[in-house]
C-alpha cells in the first residue's frame, strides 16, 4: 500500500542564516528531497542603474562600491576601465600597477569570505573566523590607503582617489609572506576534511555545456573545466604583463564541476592572486596617480560594453553616452545575477542540506544581484 504524500512548500529566507543576504527561496519538498526551487530576488534593490542617469560620470563611482560590497575595489576598477575606454583615456603606469594590486588583494578578500562562509554552510564554524582574520589584514591595508574598510571609492575615472599609504608596499609584502601558510592551514582544516568532501563532492554538478549556455562566468565556470578568465582572454589594464595560471576544476574528489571543485578553484585562485601581487608590488613606478581629467567629463556620443574579471565573474558595464555630462544609460551585467540563474537546475533532486551547499558554492552577493 502506498501512502499518500504531499509536497511541502518551504519558504527559505529572506531572513535565514545561510541565504547569504536577503535572498528568498521557495522550495518544493518531498520529505527532504527538493523537487523545485524558485529564487525570489529584489529585497535589496536600490535603483543603481536609474540613479546613474541623473549623475555625472565621476559621481557614479561610489555607487558601484555598493553592488558587490565584498569586492568594492574590483567594481570601481571595472567602472573606471569602462569610462576610460569611452573617453579614450590613458592612465599613468603607476595607477595601473596600484589598481592591479588592490584588485587582486580584493579578490583574495572576497574569496576568503566565500570560502569561510562556505565552511559555515557545511557546519564548520572555525575556518570562517580564520578566513575573516586574514581578510582583516587586507582591510587594514585598504583602510590606510583609502580611508574606508568596505566601500572604498578609491579607483576613480582617470586615476585614484589618492596615492597609496607609505606603508602600503611593506604591509602588502608582509601579508603575502603571512598568508601563504594560511592557505595550507585552510586546506588541512577544511578542503581535505573527509566530511567536507562527502558533503560537497558530486553535489550540484554543473556540466561544461550547461555552464556556457547559462552564461556562467568566474570561478563557477572555471570549476566546470572551462579555462576562461578575462584577465587572460580579454586583457585589460596591465594584466598581460604578469605571469599567472588559470586554475580549472579537475574533479579531484568527484565529478568536474561539483561543489567541491567550485570551492577548490577559489583556493587555487588565492595563490594566483598572490603571484600577481608579488610581481607587481616591486614594479610600482614613480609618478602621478591622476591623469588630467576634467571635473565634468563629456564623452562623445557612443555606446560601450566593457568587461572585467571580478572575483565573482564577468562584471560588465554597458554605457550609452549621449554627449552630455550624464550617461544616458548604465547597465550592469552582474556576475552573481547570471550565476544565480543556474541555481534551480542544480538543486533539483538534492536534499535540503545540499541546497545550502550549492548556494554557498555559487558565492552570490545580493547587493550585486539586486543592485
Amino acid at each position: 500500500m502506498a501512502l499518500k504524500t504531499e509536497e511541502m512548500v518551504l519558504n527559505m529566507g529572506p531572513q535565514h542564516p545561510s541565504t547569504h543576504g536577503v535572498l528568498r527561496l521557495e522550495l518544493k519538498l518531498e520529505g527532504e528531497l527538493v523537487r523545485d526551487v524558485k529564487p525570489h530576488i529584489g529585497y535589496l534593490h536600490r535603483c543603481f542603474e536609474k540613479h546613474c542617469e541623473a549623475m555625472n560620470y565621476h559621481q557614479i563611482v561610489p555607487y558601484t562600491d555598493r553592488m558587490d560590497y565584498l569586492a568594492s575595489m574590483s567594481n570601481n576598477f571595472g567602472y573606471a576601465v569602462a569610462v576610460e575606454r569611452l573617453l579614450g583615456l590613458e592612465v599613468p603606469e603607476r595607477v595601473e600597477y596600484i589598481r592591479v594590486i588592490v584588485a587582486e588583494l580584493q579578490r583574495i578578500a572576497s574569496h576568503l569570505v566565500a570560502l569561510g562562509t562556505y565552511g559555515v554552510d557545511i557546519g564548520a564554524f572555525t575556518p570562517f573566523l580564520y578566513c575573516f582574520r586574514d581578510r582583516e589584514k587586507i582591510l587594514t591595508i585598504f583602510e590606510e590607503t583609502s580611508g574606508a574598510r568596505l566601500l572604498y571609492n578609491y579607483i576613480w575615472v582617470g586615476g585614484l582617489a589618492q596615492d597609496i599609504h607609505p606603508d602600503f608596499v611593506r604591509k602588502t609584502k608582509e601579508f603575502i609572506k603571512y598568508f601563504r601558510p594560511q592557505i595550507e592551514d585552510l586546506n588541512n582544516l577544511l578542503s581535505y576534511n573527509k566530511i567536507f568532501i562527502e558533503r560537497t563532492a558530486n553535489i550540484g554538478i554543473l556540466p561544461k555545456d550547461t555552464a556556457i549556455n547559462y552564461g556562467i562566468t568566474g570561478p563557477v565556470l572555471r570549476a566546470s573545466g572551462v579555462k576562461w578568465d578575462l584577465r587572460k582572454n580579454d586583457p585589460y589594464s596591465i594584466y598581460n604583463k604578469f605571469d599567472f595560471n588559470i586554475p580549472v576544476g579537475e574533479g579531484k574528489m568527484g565529478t568536474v564541476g561539483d561543489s567541491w571543485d567550485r570551492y577548490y578553484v577559489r583556493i587555487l585562485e588565492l595563490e594566483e592572486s598572490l603571484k600577481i601581487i608579488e610581481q607587481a608590488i616591486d614594479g610600482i613606478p614613480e609618478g602621478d596617480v591622476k591623469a588630467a581629467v576634467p571635473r565634468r567629463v563629456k564623452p562623445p556620443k557612443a555606446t560601450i560594453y566593457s568587461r572585467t574579471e571580478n572575483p565573482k565573474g564577468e562584471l560588465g558595464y554597458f554605457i550609452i553616452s549621449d554627449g552630455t555630462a550624464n550617461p544616458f544609460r548604465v547597465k550592469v551585467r552582474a556576475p552573481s545575477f547570471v550565476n544565480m540563474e543556474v541555481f534551480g537546475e542544480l538543486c533539483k533532486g538534492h536534499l535540503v542540506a545540499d541546497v545550502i551547499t550549492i548556494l554557498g558554492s555559487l558565492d552570490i552577493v545580493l547587493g550585486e544581484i539586486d543592485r
Partner: protein
Amino acid sequence: MYEFLQNITGNQIVAYFIAAALPLFLFILPYALLAVLAERKVSAHMQDRLGPMRVGYHGILQTLADILKLIQKEDIIPAAADKKLFISAPYLIFMSSFAVFAVIPFSSFFIGSSIDIGLFYIIAISGFVVAGILMGSWASNNKYSLLGGMRSAAQIVSYEIPTAIIVLTMVMLTGSLNLKTITEQQTDFFWNWNIFGGADAGISKIVLIPLMIAAFIIIFISMLAEVNRTPFDIAEAESELVSGFHTEYSGMRFAMFFLAEYANMLAVSLIISALFFGGYNSPFGYLGNSLGVHWLIPIEQIFWFTLKGITFVFLQMVLRWTLPRLRVDQLMTVCWKYLIPYSVAILLIVGFITVL
C-alpha cells in the same frame, strides 16, 4: 547516600527528596553554567578570539547574566502552536536529561539511587528525549521545526541501537546492570578498567583490549549523535534549519533546551567513563589511603569522576568546533551500515569470550 540521609533525617520520604535533589543542585546545575561558558571559551580560543570577557573576571559570570536575561524575557508562544504540547516539551526534555544523573555513581558514597537496573533505566529515560523533541517540533507548527524534529527523532532512535548493543556487551562482560557494581569491579589500578579488558587477568584480557577500544569508539560516536552534537547536529543545523526543533522557543524555555543539551553531554561522558574508564576509581590508588584519612577517599573519587567526565565533554567541544556536519542520509549510513554491524560483531565475540 539514601541510607545515610535516612539515618540522619529519620524519615524515608525526606531522605528520598534530598538524595534526588543533591546531585542536581550540588553538581549538575553549576556544571551546566560552567559548561556553557567553557564551550564559548574553548571555541573562542580555537578561533583566535577571547570569548566573553566583560562579566566578571574573563567573563566567568557570563552564563549567569545570560540566564538572568532569559528569565526576564517575554514568554512567546506562537499563535498557531499547540499550547499544551509546546509548553510541556521543554520540561520533558529537561526532566529526562537530568533524571539520568540519579543512577550515576559520583563516588562510592554519593549516588542518587543505586538501583540494580541502572543501565536499563538510563536507556529507558533517555528515550523520553525523543518524545520531547517530537512534541516540541510538532507543537511549534513551524516547517523548520518539523524537519528538525523528524531528523532528530530518526537520528536518536537509530543511534540508540548501537548504544544499546554496546551497553549490552558491557553488561555481559561485567554481569551487572548496576553502574556502581560495574564501577566497583574496576578498582585499584587503571589496568583494571574495562577499556583494558577488565579486572580478570589472563589471555581473555589481552583479547578484549582491542575489542573494548572499538566498543568505546562506537559508543562515543553514537552517544555524540544521541546528544545532537557536531558532526551529528543535523537536528539543529543552524545553516539549514535555522535552529531545528527549538526554532520557535525563546526565553526560559529555550534555556531549558540549552541546559539540557549540556547536561546530556555530561551524562553521556559520565556513562562512558563509568563503563570503560573505571568510573570514580582513581587510576593509581588514593591519597586518603596512604595518609590514612579515609573521609578523603569519596572526595578524591568525585574529583576523578568529574575529571574523566569533563575530559570527554572537552573532547566533544573540540570536535564540534573542528568538524563540519554530516548530511541526513550520510548520518543514517554511518549508523546502519557501519556502527550497528560492528557493534553486533563485538557483542558476539565478547559473548563468546565470556562463555569461555
